[in-house]
């Protein structure tokens, strides 16, 4: 480690680089394949990994445009990818803001305000957060099926219903933000209290501005989580025009209607924005992930 012969070091370096490069080649294979498939003709394997006659057909369809082939046949988009994307983004944004508001204010309360039975509340919150919404799918279906009989706004196949149930994601994020608030010096809020600020004013004018970084982390994490949800959305959403990306994308690889090429283009189109956001924010996101997980 500290005393190493140059020859040994060299051998080790070559080994490490070699291993990483082979490993990366394996890891990157699916990505490279999808890019190649999205430019390939047709929806089935043509026998080559590299597209021999590159075509933009799948990309036209992914953007919802008709494509005219060389022989004059017009292909229409199989599914409304952009509409699904808009549904996903809309639901993710609204539910994300809701979760952010709920978890920030709860985290402040858990971190700073003296309430009887707080320790017990925190413990039960920790235990309850391990129960994912996906376990209560039967109940969620039954509840919204019944509420739909009262008003379709809260029924099956409604975005409002989906957003409302996504608010259950709040528990995980309370921990992340609370960990952050716990690390803020208590001298700050004492000074504010001496100046006559109410806890609400302390929260609004001192903690909220300080929490902007962690709040953006939580928002992005919550947003990505909602975009990625398949189980809840697949149970609640029925009609094709109301589907989110996660539910809709599955239709492409149906046994009876296998649209491999069209899927590849749609997957890149819908996956790229989220991937880019994640990579840009990754350093903060990662710290948010482990902070929230470790701080008890």
């Amino acid at each position, binding site marked *: 480690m500290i005393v190493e012969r140059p020859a040994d070091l060299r051998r080790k370096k070559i080994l490490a680089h070699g291993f990483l490069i082979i490993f990366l080649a394996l890891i990157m294979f699916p990505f490279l*394949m999808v890019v190649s498939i999205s430019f390939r003709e047709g929806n089935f394997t043509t026998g080559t990994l590299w597209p021999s006659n590159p075509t933009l057909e799948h990309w036209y369809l992914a953007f919802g445009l008709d494509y005219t082939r060389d022989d004059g046949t017009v292909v229409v988009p199989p599914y409304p990818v952009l509409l699904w994307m808009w549904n996903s983004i809309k639901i993710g944004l609204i539910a994300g803001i809701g979760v952010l508001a709920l978890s920030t204010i709860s985290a402040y*309360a858990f971190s700073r*305000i003296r309430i009887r039975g707080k320790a017990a509340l925190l413990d039960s919150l920790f235990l309850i957060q391990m*129960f*994912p919404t996906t376990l209560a799918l039967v109940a969620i279906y039954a509840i919204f099926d019944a509420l739909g009989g009262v008003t379709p706004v809260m029924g099956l196949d409604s975005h409002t219903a989906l957003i409302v149930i996504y608010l259950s994601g709040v528990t995980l994020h309370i921990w992340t933000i609370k960990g952050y608030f716990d690390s803020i010096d208590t001298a700050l809020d004492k000074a504010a209290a001496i100046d006559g600020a109410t806890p609400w004013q302390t929260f609004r004018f001192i903690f909220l501005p300080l929490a902007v970084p962690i709040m953006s982390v939580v928002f992005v994490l919550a947003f990505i989580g909602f975009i990625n949800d398949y*189980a809840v959305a697949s149970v609640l959403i029925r009609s094709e025009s109301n589907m989110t990306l996660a539910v809709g994308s599955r239709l492409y690889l149906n046994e009876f209607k296998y649209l491999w090429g069209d899927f590849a283009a749609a997957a890149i189109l819908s996956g790229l924005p*989220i*991937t880019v956001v994640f990579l840009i924010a990754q350093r903060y996101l990662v710290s948010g992930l482990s902070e929230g997980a470790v701080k008890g």
Partner: protein
Amino acid sequence: MSAAVDVTPVQQGSSLPRLVMVTLICLVLLFGAFVLYMAAQPLFGVILLALAVGVGIVFGANRFYGARFIFPGVAAVLIFIAFPVLYTIYLGFTNYSSFNLLNYDRTVAVLTSRGTADPATEQPFNVARDGDGYRIWLPQAGLLSSPVELGEGAEAASLAPAEAPADLLEPRDAIALRTGLQSLTLTTPDGAALVNSGLRTFASVTPEFVVEGDGLLRRSADGALLTANNATGFFEDEAGNRVPPGWRVNIGLANFERVFTSEGVRAPMLRVFVWTIIFATASVLLTFSVGLALAVILQWEHLRFRSIYRILLILPYAVPGFISILVFRGLFNQTFGEINLILNALFGLSPSWFTDGSLARVMLLIVNTWLGYPYMMLLAMGFLQSVPEDHKKAAALEGASSTRVFFTITLPQIIPPFLPLLIAAFAFNFNNLVLILLLTRGLPDIPGTVIPAGQTDILASFTYRMAFNDSAQQFGLAGAITLLIFVVVAAISYLNFVAMRRAAGRRGGKPT
């Protein structure tokens, strides 16, 4: 907690706007509760009522100032997590399924609305235009109806003898009005009711079932008396034959009895359970070891291009999971997939990834490792930094190989803080519904089972299929099995809680 702020309700300005606000919100919630109660959903009504009371007390009274901050979060957790969990458990004690979907009143309504057309009274009809509305003309009987709209809702009209009207619609245009026609009831001068019985005919329809009294139906076909059986949720004749559809009733422990005693349910469930444990354990071990190994390599200061490697290595984590899983579904496809294309070209192999149970399981683990190792790698990189460098140096000076240093110094130091995260990862994979549903849907099926159970099904996907995929939609049975999953998850959750406490205690005790 010394960090807590003393909460003294400081009155600043008038509290009138707040009280008006609170009153308004409470009124809206109370109105919602009333509507739900009137719509025969008393349970949901009670929840809204409780919410209204909570808002009123916490935000109305000054002495609960501190609770105002905690109320929204706690209410959300209670309504969106605790309530669905409890409701699932409750459903486990009912016979809720596609056969017993409705409540009692709706069931009676569905049964009595059924009818059979009497062929003797069947006769053709025409639709005549009458201003903005229409009239129905029955040429055989020479009867003309009073004006009708033929809109969306149900309609009734009386018939009277008349001359044939002049302005009759073409049959094609009459068919376009069939929604309105189907909800129309015509009454003949002698009091018989006629309804639309086919595309071109009206007939008198005798209802299949007639309400005889409370909980009693008379079947018109054979005159049998059917009794509502609230133990099974069906109307039954004297021999006990059920008439579907039924309604939802509490059936006590019947679902649990089925789970534990019916061989056709218990045997596949046990196999699914064992595979769930294997799947979750193997996923955690694989992602952890791959992630840790990569983190150790990336941590080596002599290595160049570390940040590039790091970015590329976390790519699988950055791409939305549902997209990656579906990409793998396509790549692994037996006939059109690129993986078999390569394997075939290189080794002449063409494994059947989706129809062979063991291969499907291997595929799931490969995909899940691919998806999960970056998370472990990122966490491991953080924990590795907290291992003191001088411990490692001291060991190296003593002549320990780097492998030995890793296993005796590094690993024991990072396992304790890692443990809660590993348990959480186990819990996540125990319920990794998205992966199973998008990649294999639990297929291939285990042969010879009463309920559909697949060789790659985990408990969560097993119940999902039981409730939402199968034709029988057995919500009640699925709820019962979910209760069993809850027990397991609660145990894992408690274990995690203990591990977390230990980790926190360790860090708290360490001088920094």
